[in-house]
């Protein structure tokens, strides 16, 4: 079975950067946000690597990545991601980060997917992260599916296999560290991935060169995509408070330390 795998993947500021919330004329943002290096959202990254694995095992399958973010940042991030696997980029030049409205984002992504030439919903598997590393709203993929009319949706997916009869066998995370296994007869479906089980593929520069020859013109022509700034209002934004309490101990058994930590967590 050949699938049209479409991965929705956004950008996130490099987590090692100083992320300081500030108020901008258009709402909350990060200090010097456009100057911060970005990475491909790690949750979406898992989805992409799983897509590559599925495409490899299902001959004829294709991968397209739909990404919304500032054009220059998309280009910067693709310099790395494009070296991992062959895919086509559909770039939407618009705001990224953690303060965008999930409803508007889902509309932009769904519209872009629906407009892909040759898009065949019956073969479509819409992949993405189950949440993002920026704000973690965890709702975009469901809304993308709804807008596209795809109602078979799976969240926090860790594994996907395809039965010989073409059915999708999907393992989703549920409460208590357990998985729920579902069987979906066929595409289309939305899969919002948790971590999956695949490592980051090694670089392959030749793949990167081939990808970028196509992506660079696509980035130049990226469709300007405006989101509704009034769609969401934030009362307050702040980083989680960091506290450090240090106590010097010596020769305490590891079990005692673990017990103390567990007791502290239970408080």
């Amino acid at each position, binding site marked *: 079975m050949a699938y049209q795998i479409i991965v929705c993947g956004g950008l996130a500021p490099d987590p*090692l950067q100083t992320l300081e919330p500030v108020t901008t004329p258009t709402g909350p943002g990060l200090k010097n946000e*456009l*100057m911060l290096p970005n990475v491909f959202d790690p949750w979406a990254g898992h989805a992409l690597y799983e897509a590559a694995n599925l495409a490899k095992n299902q001959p004829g399958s294709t991968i397209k990545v739909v990404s919304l973010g500032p054009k220059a940042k998309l280009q910067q991030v693709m310099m*790395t991601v*494009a070296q991992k696997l062959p895919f086509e980029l559909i770039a939407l030049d618009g705001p990224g980060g953690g303060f965008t409205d999930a409803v508007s984002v889902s509309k932009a992504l769904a519209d872009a997917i629906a407009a892909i030439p040759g898009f065949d919903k019956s073969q479509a598997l819409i992949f993405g992260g189950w949440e993002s590393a920026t704000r973690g709203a965890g709702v975009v993929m469901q809304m993308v599916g709804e807008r596209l009319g795809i109602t078979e949706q799976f969240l926090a997916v860790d594994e996907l296999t395809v039965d010989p009869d073409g059915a999708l066998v999907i393992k989703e995370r549920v409460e208590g560290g357990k998985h729920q296994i579902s069987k979906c007869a066929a595409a289309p479906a939305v899969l919002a991935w948790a971590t999956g089980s695949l490592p980051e593929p090694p*670089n392959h520069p030749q793949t990167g060169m081939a990808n970028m020859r196509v992506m660079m013109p696509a980035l130049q022509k990226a469709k300007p995509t405006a989101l509704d700034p009034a769609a969401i209002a934030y009362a307050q934004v702040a980083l989680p408070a960091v506290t450090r309490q240090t106590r010097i101990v010596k020769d305490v058994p590891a079990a005692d330390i673990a017990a103390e930590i567990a007791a502290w967590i239970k408080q």
Partner: protein
Amino acid sequence: MHATTPPKQQEFLKTLPGDDIRQLLWRFSDRFDLQMLVQSVRAVARGPVARLVANGGRNTHEWTPEKNALLTDFDNSGITAAFMDPHEGGYLEGPKNLALSLIAFELAWVDAGAATCSLATHLGLSPIHQRGTKEQKDYYMNLAAPAPGKVTKRAAFALTEPIPYVGVETGILCGKIRIAEWPEGGEPILEVNKRGRFITNMGFADFVTAAVESDDPRIQGTCMVILEEGDPGIFDRGVPTRKLVMQLSSTSDPVFQLKVPASRIVGGYSVVNGKIVPTYDHGAVIEAVFRRTRVGVGLMTSAKLLSAVEPLIRYHRDRFRGSGVVVPGSPRYELGLQQKEDVTHRLLDIWAVGEAGASLGFLTARMYDELDPIEKLKDAALAEQGIGGGMSAVKYLRKRSVEAIEFLEMQSHHESLRNKARYAALEADPVIQYLVTDGQANVLCPATKLWNTGYGNKMMREAVSLMGGYGITEDCPGFLSYKWMDSQLEATYEGPEAVQRRQLSMTMINEVFLAQFRTWIHDMRRVAATEPGTGACTVASAMHLWLWTLEHLQHAKDADGAKLYQSNRQGVTFPMADALCWLLASRAQILDVEHLRREGAGGVIAEGFEGTVAFLTDLCHIQAARAAGEVARICSELVFGYMRHPSWDRSDECSTCFKEEELQQLESLIPGASGFTSEFIRIDGSHDSKAGPCVQSTGLRDFTRLRSKLDGCLAGALLAKDRAADSIQKVMIPAALDYPQ
């Protein structure tokens, strides 16, 4: 009139310069292949390389499995294949000097040993790439190109040899080659005896390109020969060198005693009158190889200096945080040691040298990318005229250098003043373009290697010192102490400092280069006219002073009548080479910032552009002032230092001294008027308490004028430093270093 001091309320640097800025500065913003390369090399450097260093991988001389695993990372990231052309298994089209320089820069940002390991692999292949026959290139590049399911074969380069206890000499070879067998009508079999010293990559190399000399009347001269591990005989990797630095590269003293077919001579051979005549002697091969690879080494030290900026700012800023008595929001908490001007100013010195070195190195790398195709066209043009290599080519090129100078002079004139037809003809002539580009490259390459590593090493010590006691521990963020020690080796390998100075002392007096240098002075003046804050005016004045001094020294003699500027007078030639390096680095830095100012404007850089350009401009000014100071000092020492100091003992030198009674008479007419001179003879015949009359600058008035002008050009340089120091206090840095400690 332009103000040389920009308004105080200029934008400050918001974040450390990112990739978008660097791509513009170093001119690869339009090369996505290089941008990808940078990202993948960076992932290796700040991933496996940094983890290995943090886990103590440097604490042994042995080539361990953990170190060996880096080679696979190099293969997977595209570092190994970056050297090859696409048809050889690579992925980068065209010349690769800039690409290889970027690799060296990124790896050295974390560990220079890893960078050396990568460079040495390319160095081992370089003789084959530059001078090999088609068959040799096809075979060995394919062996060395990584591919799925294939074991990558590694190369090493063996030039230096042990001459027992008296050092090494690259011009004299002890490795011997003789004919072991020469079957009738068949290919000769050669016996190679070679002992290498300090040979990089020998812990794992599968084949070696070795320099050898004929020990057989049936072989002419010297050559380079390819040795493989499986060849019959001894392929002994030798004992690891007990070096104190760069332990992520493998170095040992190998021994080879092998029999190989004559087809292994790099570049092939011909048989003339029963004698094997190698197409290239070993000198022709290493000249082509080293002139390119030395650039990457220079850039390694610059990478370290720039890599030190972020850890230093973090250390200084966070120095007092965590103490109960230093409360958040207080200057001591927010700025830490950055409250002290000395800290920020010294950091600026380090940063400015790093920027200047990087600009010089990448300029040189780009120049070799330009030179490579021009050189091929030149070779073809010479071949068409029946001119081979060697002295006939040298003579021909020397003859045509007059036209190259003519071209450069026309280039410096306004278009409307040129003879258009003549200019177009010279511009289209590959020989002329080769002479012009080669003349620059022959200076820029040794300058990069010499200045970036030599002065960079001194500034790395400064960086370590700015970390206090922490700097000299294994826990120092950014591995600064390792970087400091490693940079000492960078200043040494691939031709130590004296070799670079010697090369410069010859190439910098090439008339084609000097014609180019004169146009550069005008270029700097033009930059100064629009952007005085760059210090371009200072650099132009310093270049003028240097040029005047060079011309003076080439004709002047010392007090004993000996010629000053001559090959063996290294006390004259070497300091002039050093002074030139300062100028070239500062000029390159200014040109890069001007390029950024032009190309990054208009929203190309989304945010913080003004502040970044203002800060980098101030760094240029700081560096320009420092360069001018060095040049002025060196030139003054050389111009005056070889003159005999006047003495009271010589009556001819006292002929202009006043007599005490003359001064007394003068004083009685105009009180205080005698104070203008201390050169007088007292009534008792004695003189004032000094060595002798002041030196008369006869014939040196121009020098004095230029020197005085240069001193005045320093105006504003320290104001620039104060502004830049403000930026250092305010700049936002990442929350943590992006590689482990």
